[in-house]
């Protein structure tokens, strides 16, 4: 949850920063109405006002929705916040298991497990797991996948 919050905040900062840069430039545009060129700082504020609520609301929603489960050799992952996505992948059909860590994730000791199958539609990633759990999951999955491998595809 902190991860998404951080990412969201970073995205927000990025957008606001961009808007601020733009506003410096906007001052010289003649085709804009006068009241806007007079107050270029309005732009970053507006951007922040639009973007801030989702940034605050999104992480808890995501945290409430995101789930994963490995039982009976089926990986089940749920993700999303406004739109939701459920993915079911039988371990036997997994082709590769990746474990990745972005630098935010490293900061927080988290990791992402990516599961790929022969089809893009059956691939999924489980984000923001504790590093240890992610490592174990990735290990287990690749072992199991090896054992169960059936070459239907």
């Amino acid at each position: 949850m902190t991860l998404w919050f951080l990412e969201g905040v970073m995205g927000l900062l990025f957008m606001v920063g961009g808007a601020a840069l733009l506003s410096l430039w906007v001052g010289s545009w003649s085709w804009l109405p006068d009241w806007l060129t007079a107050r270029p700082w309005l732009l970053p504020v507006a951007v922040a006002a639009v973007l801030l609520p989702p940034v605050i609301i999104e992480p808890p929603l995501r945290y409430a929705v995101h789930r994963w489960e490995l039982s009976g050799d089926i990986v089940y992952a749920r993700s999303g916040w406004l739109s939701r996505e459920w993915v079911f992948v039988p371990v036997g059909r997994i082709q590769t298991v990746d474990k990745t860590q972005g630098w935010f994730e490293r900061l927080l000791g988290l990791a992402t497990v990516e599961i790929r199958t022969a089809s893009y539609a059956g691939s999924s990633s489980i984000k923001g797991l504790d590093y240890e759990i992610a490592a174990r999951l990735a290990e287990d999955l690749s072992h199991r996948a090896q054992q169960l491998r059936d070459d239907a595809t």
Partner: protein
Amino acid sequence: MRLSPKVLLIDPVRMLPSLLLPLGGVLVAGGFSARSFLFAAMGVAGSIVFAVIRWATFTYTIVGDRLELTRAFVSRSVRTIPLERIRGVDVSTPPLHRLFGLAVVKLDTGAGGDKQEGELNGVTVEEAERLRAILLARRPSPPRATSEAYNGTAAGVPGPTGPAAGVPAGAAGIPGGVPAGVSGEHYFIRVPRSWLRYGPLSGAYLLTPFALVAGAVGLLFQWGDEFGISGKAAWAIGEWLWDHPQYLIAGVIVLVLAMPLAGGIMYAVFNWDFTLKARDGYLVAERGLINRRAVSLERSRIRGYELAESPPERVAKLVRLWAVVTGLGDSETRGQLLPVAPKADALAIAADAIAPFGPNAGSTHTNAVGLRPHPPQARRRRLFRAIFPWLLVAAVAAVLGWGVVVAVALALALLGIPLGLDRYRSLGHGYDGARFSVRSGSLRRTQAVVERRALVGWTFKQTWFQRSSGLLTVIAGVGAGSGGYSALDTGERQGVEFAAEVTPEWLTQFITHP
């Protein structure tokens, strides 16, 4: 073995277009002096020498169970393709090759990406046939045990492949003709010429005249200088045409009239004498008038088929048919099993060559057998999506005061009503115990029938809007064809139950969660 030396006759001709411009440039730059001709001649000679060296240094051999392609021109590279990895062989004869009795053999290895494929550009037709026989006579790993096992496992579908054709395990790999005794050729269909009349309906090549004109204009501009037509003259022509719009309009009308004709001709050229046959566990589709192309698909890798129809085709009860094959590159053209064909025949052939779908499989008019409709909310959603964007455009245009745009957008919104209704009618999914099927779309209605064992996973998706109307999109991940086949807007329970019905062992334990 080397490629056929006749390639040397083709290669320079093939390179000519790319050489023409630089050569022309050299000549023009040199003011057509003797020296510039010398340079140009050197260029031509160089390209010929290059072609010869390339020919001389490229060899292919079948060693044991591998095919090795060796290139040793500047750097040396050996590409080894295990024969069991070859999933399909695509033999085609472009016009020039045909003139000299050559063919291009492309090997589909399922590695993905064009670069991963083996290509033998320029072997004699007999050699291509021989290669195909050898390459395809091999079975994937375990199979070399007995020839019976080979026929049983590989063909998958008993019957049409004919009697157990004994392929001596060692025979493959040894040069020397098509292994004798490989019979079992079975024609599913030789498409009658009369079916070519359906071509213009397919809409595939309708834009050909425009493309031709555009190409000609482009060429004119590019090479205009060399033909003595300066840009100014072209501009003058353009202005003259603009001043005399009747010619312009007449030209456009001619082009539009030429559309079905040219479309029909192109279609006929590409799909001439389409035949579909089975040969030792492979489906072979051959077609083409000038460039004859034969694509072999390994039957044990075919996981299903896909039908597509456009509205005019639906009116005329026509359909196009593709195979869903695992690890097939360029599946849009290679997987094609039939040109535009009457639906009843296409279904019969699909049932015969691959497998039937539906409880009363075998009857030929299985229009929507076993497909369950989606809930009424789905109709609302289809309608909304077909109409609303245009209404939005109309509203915005009305605010801005663009009358024409408003009218057009409103007209499109009106058109959206039947479109949306039809799209809802098209929606459907079903499962017959071994294969599941999903159908969607209106302007291009596609129905996919895929085997259960090709599934690699399920994905359920629900956007916020779908959630509020209790709908769910089910995407079946398949390691073949386009990768995922979705059942749009099923009911929440319905969608989950559909997935659980197809693969109960995957989902029942979770069924209470979503």
